[in-house]
């Protein structure tokens, strides 16, 4: 098995997202502690770290989804394309249209599969007419590697899908709006290897034009798809760098022990 393919494209692009001294508190829980990070454009960045270390929390900071959690307080500075996204002039809606998200728990709308995917394109006006919309939906479902399974039941409810199918539906829903940055919180956790490979292919394809940030527990997956990896531990960003380097030659002992402690 080629678990640790070496990176063939380490050309790092310009910075897309800059985070400085980001702190997140949930009431008294200090979930993210002074994280600084630069995320490059046209790059896949992987967030790894033990469960509960704050990966999802940090990811949600990047498109201000934390705003919706009562009691969550975000401080520090996060800039996307030089613009501070917590600036009062920034419209979180526009931000989220630009920064798409796949949530950790699949959360399809209680609507049909078609409507689930078509929703984003509709509100962003990406389709001029029904045919175009149909095309967009089909393309997104194909990219989400779920088209074959659902093409005969596009009007069945999205909540009646299996766990992995729901996950892929959510991926399709997120890519349908063509975001510039895609945040994916464990997008393959419920997927079989083949579907995983297809999603990874999608990620690779997206990287040609966009930034992708992916949270994963699979070191192999991180190694396969990402160019850069950030390792979180207890709310701290312990180490961040080129994926190859993190996995072969980590600087921090915690990274080292986390990586070597891996089993899968």
């Amino acid at each position, binding site marked *: 098995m080629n678990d640790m393919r070496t990176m063939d494209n380490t050309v790092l692009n310009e910075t897309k997202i800059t985070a400085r001294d980001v702190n997140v508190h949930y009431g008294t829980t200090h979930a993210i502690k002074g994280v600084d990070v630069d995320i490059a454009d046209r790059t896949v960045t992987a967030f790894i770290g033990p469960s509960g270390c704050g990966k999802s929390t940090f990811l949600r900071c990047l498109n201000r989804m934390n705003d919706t959690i009562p009691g969550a307080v975000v401080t520090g500075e996060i800039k996307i394309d030089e613009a501070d996204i917590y600036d009062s002039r920034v419209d979180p809606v526009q931000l989220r249209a630009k920064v798409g998200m796949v949530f950790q728990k699949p959360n399809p709308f*209680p609507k049909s599969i078609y409507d689930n995917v078509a929703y984003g394109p509709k509100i962003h006006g990406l389709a001029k007419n029904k045919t175009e919309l149909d095309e967009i939906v089909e393309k997104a479902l194909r990219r989400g590697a779920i088209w074959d399974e659902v093409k005969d039941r596009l009007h069945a409810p999205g909540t009646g899908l299996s766990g992995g199918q729901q996950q892929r539906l959510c991926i399709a829903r997120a890519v349908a709006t063509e975001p510039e940055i895609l945040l994916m919180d464990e997008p393959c956790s419920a997927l079989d290897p083949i579907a995983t490979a297809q999603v990874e292919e999608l990620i690779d394809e997206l990287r040609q034009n966009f930034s992708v940030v992916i949270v994963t527990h699979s070191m192999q997956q991180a190694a396969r798809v990402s160019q850069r990896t950030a390792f979180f531990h207890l709310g701290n960003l312990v180490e961040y760098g080129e994926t190859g380097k993190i996995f072969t030659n980590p600087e921090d002992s915690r990274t080292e022990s986390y990586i070597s402690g891996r089993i899968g």
Partner: protein
Amino acid sequence: MTDIPQSGATPVEPPAPKGDSLLVTDARTKRRNRAERRFKAYGIAALGVGMAFLVALLWAILSNGLTAFTQSYVQLDVPLLEEKLDKDGDRDPAKIAKVSTFGYAPLIEAGLVDLVEKTGVETELEPKALTKILSSSAAAQLRDRVLANPELIGQTVSVELLASSRVDGYLKGRVSRASLARDKNLDAEHLDLIDAWRDAGLVEKRFNWDFITGADASDSRPEQAGIGVAMLGSLFMMLVVLILSLPIGVAASIYLEEFAPQNRLTDIIEVNISNLAAVPSIVFGILGLAVFIQFMHLPQSAPLVGGLVLTLMTLPTIIISTRASLKSVPPSIRNAALGVGASKMQAVTHHVLPLAMPGILTGTILGLAQALGETAPLLLIGMVGYIATNYPDGVAEGFLAPNSAMPAQIYEWAKRADPAFYERAWGGIIVLLVFLLAMNLIAVLLRRRFERRW
């Protein structure tokens, strides 16, 4: 829940030995299943109790009120004597109109005397006493007819006149001969006449459309009273209530539940709303009188004002239920929408509202039902009493012309002395319920469409 409620109270069974057959239910499970069955039985019982009461109430309503839908009429030939109605004989409408209903009474008396002779029944009743058989509306009925066709003067016309309430009650079996004997208003001889005329086909009981379409009548002629105009008043009020309270209520709930920051102002609004729900409806009447009539100079007794008052009264019901159902929509749905770049407003209108719709509709049903059946506030803005207007001329008139409402009409009838009104009151309740059912049907169908579990 506090700690260990079950095991604290009951002795603990040792864990079932492994490998027990599933076909045998162990003691603890049996006990829990009994609790389960009990629980379910409570549910069925509760539903049963509710239904039983409903059936009892409906039975009472139907058995008391169905008779209001039939009515007795007397067929009478009345000589329209020219010397009484048009002394000058020039058929001048203005002069004919001068003859009041009192001028028509003798004509009807004459017609009755003729009829008694024609049917050949012996009676000692005075001609004046004979008119007790007919509704006091007879003269007006006749006058209207003459005013509409002055050329009838001089002829003998055959008219169908309402029988008086007691004759009607006798024909419906509501009043017996025995009880009428004690009644000062009608004698046994009247009844003999009625029996004879009925056999001759001159007195007839049939379905009473006028009750459903007509206007209120004064206390002395229950047989003429109808609920139609009041129904129209209710309809216009409900239109106002629906058009205002549903959007306002939903808008206020959305603001409070989805957008409002947690601060003093929202707290104050929140407390205010739940408090308004507890304000007695009559106080809303006081408010309506002060604000809409005295301050804003809206017309008195107008359905528009009634609708506004009822809107204020219904709002808390709709807001409270809408908020409760907005609250019950899982946050993951909102997140999903926000995550694809929908604005909060879009997330709410596209996803949350449809999911909260059943609760909103329930609140609307309850609120409208309450508003439809409410009398007390109408008392103060002048919609209870004798408001026998005819049908409004148009839609704007419908909102502004004096009118009553069904519950007010029913309340008014229920107070009146003549027992025939009591029957009408129950009949009115039937109409009100049918109206309510029709109104709810739409909401119920909509609600079924929106219901889903996720």
